[in-house]
């Protein structure tokens, strides 16, 4: 054990786990003791969802090295399939927890399938072309779900695509006991709020275990080698397509599970929630946290999800301040002059950084 912890990557991984566990224990204890503000309490589950999103996107962008601008699409697939699963099983499985787990698994599987369908063509491309195609797929998923009408009655699921825009829930021809689950443009309405903070924590931990173990495994080294030099990796016999697809699908599946949790946290959800801006938002978490840096993604996701809420006092200037903070942080972390200036102002920090690095 001691030897194991000497290795720097292992130490970082353990610290990441530890940090997440400690944060959860503190927040959970505060929640149980009813000492949290309502606003903080309301953000616990979505923060978990976006942490998972950031970790999963980091797998694509940071570890696989491919820019994806449509990650919210997979979240959307996971959210809506999870909602369908949870709501259609309402009669047969009374336990909330069981339904939540099933919903998350279904969400992950559906998103993985979507990831595979998208991944096969997309991963033939490179760089910015790949980025624009992921953006395109994200938008296509959004519009397709926007046309989806789903209902459930004792005869099973009724699914319909409202391509002409002229259909509504009535066209599903459900029996009297039928429940409309997704009403086209309106999205899912009347969703049971099954999501819980402990489940969010479990999901975060699960994703961490998957990603961290993947990265430190033989597979992970293959993926990293593809990121660093695809041609060299190919020349030593690594199956580039297989590993790229594998990373992409795992990333999509995790996004799907996060989506399912997110969807079941609110009583309504519309597909426009998962638009290009949401994809970009998650990308910002990943870039700000550091490419390939898992714990950086976690912290960035938490801080940046909370930031707009924390800026509520600024009223109209809220998003303007957010934008300025974003630009300044990017400048501060990527410009050498700026960094040198910061170093002069904060000599202590520089020493600390030197000791760390």
């Amino acid at each position, binding site marked *: 054990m001691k030897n194991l912890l000497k290795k720097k990557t292992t130490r970082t991984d353990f610290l990441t786990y530890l940090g997440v566990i400690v944060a959860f224990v503190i927040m959970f204890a505060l929640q149980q003791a009813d000492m949290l503000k309502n606003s903080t309490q309301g953000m616990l589950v979505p923060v978990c969802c976006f942490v998972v999103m950031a970790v999963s996107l980091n797998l694509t*962008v940071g570890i696989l090295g491919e*820019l994806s601008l449509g990650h919210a699409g997979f979240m959307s697939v996971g959210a809506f399939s999870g909602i369908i699963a949870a709501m259609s099983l309402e009669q047969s499985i009374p336990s909330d927890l069981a339904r939540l787990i099933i919903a998350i698994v279904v969400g992950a599987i559906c998103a993985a399938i979507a990831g595979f369908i998208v991944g096969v*063509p997309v991963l*033939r*491309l*490179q760089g*910015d*072309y790949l*980025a*624009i*195609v992921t*953006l*395109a*797929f994200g*938008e*296509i998923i959004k*519009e*397709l779900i*926007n*046309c989806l009408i789903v209902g459930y009655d004792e005869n099973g699921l009724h699914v319909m695509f*409202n*391509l*002409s*825009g002229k259909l509504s829930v009535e066209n599903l021809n459900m029996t009297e006991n039928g429940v409309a689950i997704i009403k086209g443009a309106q999205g899912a309405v009347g969703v049971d709020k099954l999501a819980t903070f402990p489940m969010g924590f479990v999901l975060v931990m699960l994703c961490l275990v998957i990603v961290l173990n993947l990265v430190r495994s033989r597979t992970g080294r293959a993926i990293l080698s593809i990121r660093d030099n*695809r*041609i060299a990796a190919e020349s030593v016999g690594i199956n580039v397509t297989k590993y790229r697809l594998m990373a992409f699908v795992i990333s999509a599946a995790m996004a799907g599970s996060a989506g399912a949790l997110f969807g079941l946290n609110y009583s309504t959800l519309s597909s426009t929630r998962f638009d*290009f801006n949401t994809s*970009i938002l998650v*990308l*910002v978490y990943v*870039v*700000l946290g550091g*490419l390939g840096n898992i714990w950086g993604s976690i912290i960035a996701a938490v801080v940046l999800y909370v930031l707009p809420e924390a800026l509520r006092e600024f009223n*109209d*200037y809220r*998003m*303007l301040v*957010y*934008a*300025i903070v*974003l*630009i300044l942080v*990017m*400048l501060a*972390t*990527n*410009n*050498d*002059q*700026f960094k040198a200036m910061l170093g002069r102002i904060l000599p202590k920090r520089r020493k600390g950084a030197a000791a760390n690095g």
Partner: protein
Amino acid sequence: MTEFLNYLISGISLGSVYAIIALGYTMVYGIAKMLNFAHGDVIMVGGYVSFCAVFYLDLPGWLATILAIIVCTVLGVVIEGLAYKPLRQAGTLAVLITAIGVSYFLQNAAQLIWGTSTKSYASVMPGNLALGGVTIPYISILTIAACLIIMVVLTQFINRSKLGKAMRACSEDKGAAQLMGIHVNRTISMTFAIGSALAAIAGVLLCSSYTTLNPTTGSMPGIKAFTAAVFGGIGSIPGAFLGGILLGVIESMAKAYLSSALANSIVFAVLIIVLLVRPAGLLGKYVPEKV
């Protein structure tokens, strides 16, 4: 048949606007190798400036356009200098996120300056030309003409002028260009200036065709134009033109004959197919990776 012609004309007109925006995108991309997501918001600023010039100052349309061009050019150069220039050595993703920050900033600043309510933009060129059953709005003719002129002038400029040559040199190899005595930073700033001036023209034409203006007016056309630029082969000027026109026509036809709910999806699906067949876009140069 007349319906088909009407759809075609509206598609070409829409495509011309996309093409002008895509020209700005593609120029900046070709030289700075960055996706300037704030480009769409510069369009919005151009729209607001010309709106204010016409609505509050009672200036004629052409003067308002010139004013918008001046403001946007300055804005483009300032954005480049403050936000992008310090990141010249940084990774592409850092620049991308900064561009997104700039985009948020412009949208929210516009909201604070001009308010949240939508403005109705009076077309700089109202009226239409009726040819049999086919009606062609004058603004469509103007848009298409403007697009063609801009494309020809820009091609000549890039190929013939000294600055154009410098731009091409920078786009090929910045280091070598610098060694040849080209002021790389100034060249990039000039590219942003030209791109932003085009954005201002696009803003006036876009708002004239679609008559509304709000702080997020530029975002969707921006994304579409980006798609158009990639479609035609990003970095290529004729490619941006072709991509824009095709995108507009496909969108219009998809809306008319397939499904208006999925019009955007169809556009994006065509893009995906094209990229799978030609990974560098229609007119893009495919550069094989050197080992």
